[in-house]
């Protein structure tokens, strides 16, 4: 039992040291926030003023949103699998 606890503690220590896992929230949240900002910008400056000038913001926002969500799902799954293994 104690041996197992020591192993778990050691793994947690190693995980905390792995900088890339600290990057994970950043890699997921930043693109989502920026894509929503693009969509909001389109809504405020384009949609609410009935201007098609800002449709580019919508297109870029949606591209960033869907492109990132598609990759974030397997990325999060890989991190979850790691946690289970540990």
């Amino acid at each position, binding site marked *: 039992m104690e041996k197992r606890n020591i192993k778990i503690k050691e*793994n947690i220590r*190693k*995980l905390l*040291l*792995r*900088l*890339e*896992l600290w990057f*994970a929230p950043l*890699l*997921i949240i*930043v*693109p989502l926030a*920026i*894509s929503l*900002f*693009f969509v909001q*910008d389109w809504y405020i*400056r384009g949609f609410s003023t009935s201007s098609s*000038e*800002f449709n*580019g*913001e919508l*297109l*870029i926002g949606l*591209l*960033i949103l869907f*492109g*990132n969500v*598609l*990759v*974030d799902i*397997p*990325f999060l*799954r*890989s*991190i979850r*699998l*790691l946690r289970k*293994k*540990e």
Partner: protein
Amino acid sequence: MFFPEMTTKTALKITKQKMTEYHLEFLERMNAIEVDAHWFRRAFHTFAASFLFYYLLPDETWVTNVKIILPILIVAGMFVIEYHRLRGDVEHKRFFGLRSYEKKRPASYLYFGVAVMLLFLFFPQQIAIPCILCASFTDPIIGETRYFFGKKYAYPLGFVISYLFFLVTWYRADGWVLIIVTTLGASGAVIGEARKCTYVDDDFMIQILPAVLLLILCQGLLLMQIDILPPPLIHPLSQ
């Protein structure tokens, strides 16, 4: 009497050697954790699409200066890190997600950063945006398709995806311009990705090759008094 005689210099040398051994062993153990580097790299690629926020920044004087200085500083920082890694000052194993062939040459994130910086500073956004999108999305799509279905399907699909990115960015251009630009841009992106070069990474080529081709086209036509650039896709916030 019981201990062999040891000079301070020898003791220091042995301690240093022991510490290096421990350090290396520790790094080996850290790397034994099976984090999926594959999806980490993919997520980094798609994350790069967020850099397009750059074009939303206002056109005020001080912001314009920041828009020039900040990318240069970031890339300079990357150069310093890579210089130390290649010299061996920083352990290669500390860099998660690096490929084995990047051990003796600059890592792909540096090439990616340099390409994005060049696009921001020297190319109009109508050219830079689809090129950044290609590096962010076409590259991982080609990689995944190549892995599951082979090269036969990967590059045609990459061409279609790149074509769509150029189409989206140039949708307000004239019809004939749209056909030339999308074909040229998508071909450049796929060739940049497909042609593997030892010293220049595909993350650089996939962005710079289509950008250079389109810039030459635009400048050439401009000499003939034909301006093919459509209105900007992203408008700075102050407007």
